[in-house]
């Protein structure tokens, strides 16, 4: 409704353009969203100190990779990308189970989720 209201005030040729949507969505649009999600995940993994948030950021990176795989799958008209996403989901689930078990274990030792508490592990 808002769109129609605004469109009726706009110039005629713009009205037509708005009714047609915002242009065709290309592979590039999906890849851009996927890349932004991946980069945000990288930033979160590097910048946050909470172990759980760090693992949550890796899940965000998985999401970005999955979206890119689905977009490529759609682009090439085959299902291989979707099959890969199934495996990504599997690995994400396995990783979440193991990582969170480790987090619980570490939390019991130091009563803290700070990644810097464990800098002695750097060897």
């Amino acid at each position, binding site marked *: 409704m*808002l769109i129609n209201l605004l469109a009726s005030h*706009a*110039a005629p040729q*713009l009205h037509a*353009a*708005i*009714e*047609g*949507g*915002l*242009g*065709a*969505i*290309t592979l*590039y*649009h999906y890849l*851009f*969203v996927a*890349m*932004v*999600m*991946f*980069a*945000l*995940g990288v*930033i*979160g993994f*590097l*910048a*946050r*100190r*909470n172990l*759980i*948030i760090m693992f*949550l*950021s890796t899940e*965000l990176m998985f*999401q970005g990779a999955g*979206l890119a795989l*689905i977009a490529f*799958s*759609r*682009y090439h*008209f085959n*299902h291989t990308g*979707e099959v890969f996403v*199934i*495996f990504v989901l599997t690995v*994400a*689930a*396995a*990783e979440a*189970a*193991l990582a969170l078990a480790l987090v*619980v274990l570490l*939390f019991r030792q130091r*009563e803290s*989720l*700070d990644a*810097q508490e464990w800098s002695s592990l750097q060897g």
Partner: protein
Amino acid sequence: MLWTWGSGPPHAWRGRSGRLLAARAGLILWPLGVWKPSFGSGAATPCQSAERRLNAIVNPLLLYVGLAVGAVGVLMALPRRKVNPQIIGAVIAAAALGGVILHLGLRAADAGQMPNINFYLFAGIAILAGLRVVTHQRPVYSALFFILTVLSSAAMYVMLGAEFLAFALIIIYAGAILITYLFVIMLATQAPSEEEVEALSPYDAEARDPVMATAMGFLLLAGLTGMLAQGVGSLDPAGSAGEQQAIVAHLPGKVMRDLNARGVFDGLEKPAEEKLHEHWDVSAGTVTLRVTDRAALEQSMANERVAELVSDGGGEEVVVHLPSNLKASNIDGVGWALIAGHPMSLELAGVVLLMAMLGAVVLARKQVELGEAAKARAVQFLHAEEED
């Protein structure tokens, strides 16, 4: 107001009305989009070929300026101890990244092929929620925002025609993995004492090296987006018919059920599922069946829907044309690709999940130290159980 940032052929928005609108919306990024009016060779004429140059849909200058502004916004949004302009940072980052995305839409040459508003809506939600995942100071909220990201990703999967994966994503990610995260967050957080309910853990309140992390992340993003300058393709709306046929050819059960539901088999010999391919010409899309009961066949041919599929020459056999809407669905395609293409990987995925489950149980199991008295009590208790 952003919706008025309409699309279409660039000449529609480069003119006077476009500038008027830009002034009304008050968007700083606008002049950058028209700074090089002749940029992009096919901008004015709709580009029909599958291969497009990046320049046709995005202005590199605006892309990199948008990324830089986004980096500043993310940097401001990351938690820090002293002054905390988180909201301002989040708004700046969202506006910059959203501006780049909208600019992509503005530069897209041909309008009105797909339901595009939905894409921008869900892409915006996904990026905004992803931003809050990495910047929110409270882990529970981060996890909840991540669920929002997963839901909008699932919406984008649906737009890409991957329905099965969309629902699998919601069930597995939002339903299982994130719930595990929430449980662990609640288990592994110190309970605040009565007087300091709002206290944050020091490691949640402050980011570690936010400048370096943001710089690295956005350099990576700039590199990735620059890589795509080689040229990208549009998403053609229709699936390839040959591929669909190839998948259907592996699914006799689906064909049999479909024909049965349409009542085609009345008066005809109904072959067993595994024998169907003997009667089936896959390339022509027809099945040849023997007539067993001509009266029943003629009765069913009175039905229009049957008559348009069956061509009866009056002989011993009739040719059944497979209905045009009998297509391999997304689930058929994924299932076939998974089982026929990657059976070993599927088995391995099961093994990985089983080992992860065992490993998680072994790792998180709590060692209970019992004193001598407690051990004696436990032994007595067990003996008492046995005697009962």
